[in-house]
């Protein structure tokens, strides 16, 4: 069935929004140079996970990304005190909204640092890609009407 084979060659595109304070030195360059297998990753560094507002993440999905993974500092480790906690609440909220429109709550998630290496960041993106594999490609990429 064509739908099934589509899923087999579906390579989820994961946007990785990570806080600059939860990764180790050189992580950004490292994650960009890694070979991603079965998925693609678009890393974007943020000054703090709390800077990421709900509309921003929704726009990323609206523009066609299959998934968004937020990477934040651990509880108690945020330089702006409650930033990572706020980020987590926003992710929870977006997941509920995505469920309401049948888009798949799994398309967004949040993980915690600290001191992550490039490989570790890539692994987080890989996990998120796995989580959305069964959902299929972002419907926004479809050109035709059903």
């Amino acid at each position, binding site marked *: 069935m064509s739908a099934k084979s589509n899923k087999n060659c579906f390579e989820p595109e994961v946007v990785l929004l990570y806080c600059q304070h939860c990764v180790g030195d050189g992580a950004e360059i490292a994650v960009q140079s890694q070979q991603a297998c079965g998925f693609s990753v678009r890393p974007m560094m943020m000054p703090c996970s709390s800077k990421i*507002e*709900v*509309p921003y993440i*929704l*726009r990323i*999905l*609206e523009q066609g990304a299959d998934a968004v993974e937020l990477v934040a500092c651990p509880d108690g480790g945020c330089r702006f005190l409650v930033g990572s906690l706020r980020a987590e609440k926003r992710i929870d909220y977006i997941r509920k*909204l995505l469920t*309401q*429109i*049948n*888009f798949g709550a799994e398309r967004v998630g949040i993980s915690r640092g600290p001191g992550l290496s490039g490989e570790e960041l890539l692994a987080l993106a890989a996990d998120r890609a796995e989580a959305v594999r069964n959902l299929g490609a972002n*419907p*926004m990429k*479809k050109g035709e*009407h*059903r």
Partner: protein
Amino acid sequence: MIFAEWKPLEELTDKLGGFKKVLLAGCATCVAECAAGGEKEVETLAPLLRMGLKEKGFDVEILTATLEKQCEWEFVEELAELVQQVDAVLSIACGIGVQALAERFDERPVYPGVNTSALTIRQESGLWASRCAACGDCVLGETFGLCPVARCAKSLMNGPCGGTRANGSCELDEDVDCIWKLIVDRAEARGALESLAEIKKPKDWSASRHGGPKRVIREELRQ
């Protein structure tokens, strides 16, 4: 502020699926204060609607605009050009704003994107609570600044019913204080407990919506 919350997104995408171009109109006053209809909420809802509609197989173009107030004709007029370009309007202002748009732009369907439900205060970040029931016969002067019409589930006027829980909350919802307990506490603190012994007569509800839709004229302000 006037308080409203989003309608379920399923309901909204059901309504909008048949249109080609829709204007999502927000309001920067009450509904912005309750995080339902301001510019930020417009920016949140627009992508959600586009994605939700696309998921159902509909390609709907969603234009956006946020007015200062949707209850003032001078601001409503600012939408005139945009409305010409669309087939329908979804307003996330309160019911007053929705009706103002529907009245001015009566050639287009105007749908509500929110349910307007209360007059509230923002107690703290993310927490809104009822304060006023617009009863038209304010008794706050006799109840130490605490409203039993809006904040008592039974709108009792003569003290609490037997349903106050041991911790002072309302039997309906343990997160809600029994307002009469708070009134009594305040009366006690002021040494005025006996003032609550006076029997309050039945309320005249005719000043509220129970008396019929209001139409008020202030002659000195008319042109």
